Each structure stands twice: as C-alpha cells, then as structure tokens.
C-alpha cells in the first residue's frame, strides 16, 4: 500500500495505521466508542496480507494478558478499549510495566465513573498518567487531537515503547475516535523478523534462558529495580516531552488543553483574540512526561493559566505543579460526556480575568 489520503473516523484511521505500521498482533474486546478498531481490523483481515494476528478476546482482562504474552516474545502488540475496559486492563498493564515490556494501549475515553456514558470525556487523565494499576510506574502517554494524530501516534507509540521497553498509551476520547477528518496514511511497512535478545522465543544453546517476570521476592533487588524504572521515567522527562503552542509570544493568559479540548480552545482563542484578549494555548502532546518545564517558564510571564479539560479537574493539578505558584491557575471543564462550546470557554476566561 502506498501513501494515501482518505476521509476516515479516528478509530478507523488508527486501525489502518496499525496494519501499515507492521504491527504483529492486536487483541481486543468490543466497547463503545472504540469498537470500530476491532471491527475494522477484522474486516481488513491483515492475517492474509501482513500476517498480523487479530483476535477478539473473551474479556478486556484476557486481551491485555494476550498483549503481555505477545510483548514478552518481543512482538509489536497492542490493544484498545474505552474507559471501563481500560480499568479492567489495569492488572495486566502494571505487570507489563513491571516486566518492562513494550506495547501500545489505546483508550478512547468516555465519561465515568462506573459504566458512565458513551460520550467523549477526558476523565481518565489521572489513571493514564499517574500509573493506573498498583505499584510505582508510569505509562508514556500520547494525546492525539486529530484523526491524523490517531494514525501517526501508532508508529510513534511503538517506537517509544521499544526504545524504553515500557507500555505506551494513546489517550484519545470519544470525539477524536468518532469524528471524520482527512488523514494521510503512510505506506505499508513490513513486519519485523528480528528476534530481540531479551524475548522469550525458545532458548537456543547460544544464550541463557530468558525469563519475563515482574516478581522479585528480595526487597533490596526490588528496590534497585524500582530505581531503574524511576531513572527511565526521568529520562523520558528529559527527552520525550512533546507539546504545541499557539500564540503564546504575546499571551497574557494561557489555555492549557489536550485532545478534543485543545481543538475547542483553538476556536475559543480566536474568539477571545477578536475581543482583544491576548490569550495563547499550550497543547501537551505527551501527558506523561508532562511539559512542566515549558509551563513553568510561561507561568513566569502570563497573568493566569486556565486548564480546559473534559473532567472535574485532573490535568489542572499538573498545571498547578508546573506553575509552582508563579501565576494563578484555574480549571474549566464539563463532565459526563458534555462538551462546552468555545463561547462558554471564553466566558469562563473573562470571569477568570476579572478575579
């Protein structure tokens, strides 16, 4: 397949990009609003073309553990789900992080808690960026704000996952997953046939046996392992922070927003600027590592920062930590699947300015 321009839903673009990226295996379970990923892959039937395995598991729990098994073989494997399903996967995700395995997990977020709603939300920020399962670990989290990024972050996600031997999450939402936009798809890549030195693929005489485990009963060794993970996360914070800025040069106020909220804020920014309010936007692309340093710099010269997110206030805590008291920080958001209009965002900015 050649480079190609198509009009697609975010979920479908991601699924097509998965095939073209030369992924070895996808293991999923239906849940709204991300079922198109599994449906698209089943219909495309890449087993017949690239040899990619696509399997509908009996549960989210089984799906993530299939990812664990495949990742332990050094294969490019992934799963996708939406919020309640991602909660079920947390056990597997912490084992994968603890076993230092690369994989890609996609969360097309819907409103919660519990079964919640099927409409878009950004209320899984804490779960995605602070660990999610038990134990001290982080995922590297990418937040797409367009259908194009749904496609592009597949390859980027796997590159980062293998570079750090760490699970990577694409934290999308129901709007990005369901909306249609034009998307450039990359040409088909061949699946890798490389056997990685640490992978469990059958022990040849030439190396000691490989063991993939997250268990160490010796606390001193476990602590050393935890320190190794911490060093890995610090390295990500140094090297992998990604973000985008709009009109921050002369900004007196700053929106901080990712994903769907960032798209909203772009419009709100135009409306506010038309009224003479000098507002900029910083869009974090990596949510972990978070663009703390850049926000810290901007905090020294803006009058206030407004974190706009479809949650009761989650990312705002990282914005506050980044600002470190240098400027005032406020949260604005809607929850439960409700999406504010750009006008609502501007109204809230105005009341923030008056405070």
């Amino acid at each position, binding site marked *: 397949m050649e480079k190609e321009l198509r009009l697609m839903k975010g979920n479908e673009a991601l699924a097509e990009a998965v095939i073209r990226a030369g992924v070895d295996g996808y293991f999923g379970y239906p849940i709204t609003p991300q079922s198109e990923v599994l449906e698209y892959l089943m219909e495309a039937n890449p087993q017949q073309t690239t040899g990619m395995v696509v399997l509908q598991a009996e549960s989210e729990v089984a799906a993530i553990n299939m990812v*664990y098994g495949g990742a332990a073989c050094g294969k490019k494997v992934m799963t996708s789900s939406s919020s309640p399903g991602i909660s079920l996967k947390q056990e597997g995700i912490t084992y994968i992080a603890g076993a230092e395995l690369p994989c890609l997990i996609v969360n097309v977020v819907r409103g919660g808690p519990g079964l919640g709603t099927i409409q878009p939300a950004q209320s899984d920020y804490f779960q995605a960026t602070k660990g999610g399962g038990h134990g001290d670990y982080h995922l590297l989290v990418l937040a797409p704000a367009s259908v194009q990024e749904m496609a592009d972050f597949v390859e980027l996600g796997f590159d980062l996952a293998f570079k750090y031997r760490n699970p990577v999450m694409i934290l999308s939402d129901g709007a990005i997953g369901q909306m249609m936009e034009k998307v450039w798809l990359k040409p088909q890549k061949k699946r890798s046939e490389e056997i990685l030195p640490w992978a469990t693929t059958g022990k040849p005489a030439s190396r000691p046996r490989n063991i993939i485990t997250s268990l160490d009963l010796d606390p001193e060794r476990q602590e050393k392992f935890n320190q190794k993970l911490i060093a890995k996360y610090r390295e990500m914070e140094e090297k992998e922070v990604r973000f985008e800025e709009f009109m921050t040069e002369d900004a007196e106020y700053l929106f901080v927003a990712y994903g769907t909220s960032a798209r909203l804020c772009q419009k709100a920014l135009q409306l506010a600027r038309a009224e003479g309010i000098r507002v900029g936007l910083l869009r974090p692309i990596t949510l972990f590592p978070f663009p703390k340093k850049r926000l810290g710099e901007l905090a020294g010269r803006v009058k206030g920062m407004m974190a706009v997110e479809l949650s009761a206030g989650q990312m705002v805590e990282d914005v506050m930590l980044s600002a470190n008291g240098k400027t005032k920080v406020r949260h604005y958001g809607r929850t439960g699947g409700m999406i504010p209009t750009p006008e609502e965002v501007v109204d809230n900015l105005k009341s923030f300015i008056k405070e």
Partner: protein
Amino acid sequence: MAEVTLNDIIRPENMAYKRSGLMTGNVMHYCPGCGHGTAHQALAAVLEEENLQSRTVGITPVGCSVLMYNYIDIDFQEAAHGRAPALATAVKRLMPDRFVFTYQGDGDLAAIGTAETIHTCNRGENILIIFINNGIYGMTGGQMAPTTLPGMKSSTSPYGRDVSLMGAPIKMADIVAMLPGTCYVTRQSVNTAAGVRKFKRALKKAVQYQNENRGTCFIEVVSNCPSGWKMTPVESNKWLEENMFPFYPLGDLKAPEE
C-alpha cells in the same frame, strides 16, 4: 563383609532414572513430599527427550509454582494470577512453530482464571495446559480452593467445606472435555513411579498433538499438598489415593483417534 556406603549404590549402572539435563540444579522451594518437584522433573525429561528446549515457551502461574522458571532451563513468562492461557494464546498465535505450555494450580486455573481456561480451550488454541490439582491454595497457606473436597478442612473452611454454603468442588477436566476445542483431556498422578511414567506418556502425546495442531491439550495432575493438608508426605499420598482419586478419577476423559 565391607560396609556398603551410599556412593557404592549411587552408580551409573544402578540408576534406572537420571535427572533431566534441563533441570537447572537450583534448590527447589517446594515442601518435602510435594508433587510439584516430581511433575517438574517429568516435564523437563519430556522436553529434553523430545528435543524441545530451543522452541519451547513456558508460562508459569501465581501459586506455589510461580518460581518454576528457576528450575527448568527454558524460556519462561510469569503470568498474572489465572491469566497464563491468555499469554499462551498470544505466544502460540504469534509463533505457531513454538511448543507452548502453561503450568497452573487449582486456584489459578479453576477460580480466578476460569474464564481464560474455558475460552482458551473453547477456541482450541494449540497449547498444552498442565493443571496441578491438590485441592488447596498452597502458597498462601492452605485456604479453600475451588477443588477442595466436600467436608475437607482448610484455613478458610475450618469446619470442613460445606457445599450448601461454599459450593461443590469444580471438575475442570470434565468441563473442558465437553468443549469442541480440546483434543486431549486426561487426569494423571505423580505420587508413584508408575504414575510418573503415565504422566510422561501423556505429556508426549500432548507434544505430538500440538505438533499436529489438533487443539488444546489439558493434563490434570491430581496431586498432594502435605503442608496445606497438615499431613506427613506419606500420609498425604495415602489421603490422595483414598479421597482425591475417587472424586477426581484418573485416566483419559477425551483422546483423539490415533
């Protein structure tokens, strides 16, 4: 007559069996008299005899055999509790020419991992599931398992398993034998030399069937837990034969035509 020492007896010409070259020699953590060590030895011997080391991936459970990867010299993945068949499914589908097995206890396979067990068997994944059933949670200190016999005492059924409150023991081999995806379902034991030989024969059949892509093979080993049962090894083997075997009868539940 000169005194006969142990070294006079342990000589190559007197040895009917030798330790498999695939055993690592690490000191096992299992309790004296436990069946796990014997089952490991038999499995290692079959993997060695079938020349499978370079293409075997084993999946260990959570339970007493969580550290099995210390004892057999092959590539291993250590799964979360009950999830071994899900890992094995992916390994086999991504690398169909590998020999893939799980090794799981009764809590792992028949309680927390019931869904994974049944659906893996139902899909007919070409893997081998080795199921060690000793009717108790050994590692956590002797709690009631889904396979604990009626009336049997454990630390969480101190007055005996009351089936009206706690349910009856679950017979996993019978359940998976009903599923069209399984090709070979058998119950074996390792408490006697004859039992070990039969277990090895069953393992060899499972290797053959997996090579022929015939579906899921499920070998249950009805075994003992001297510590959890609070018995000496000899007492536990007697109790095994008198109580466990009548409830979980040994033999093939399902076997393909040769």
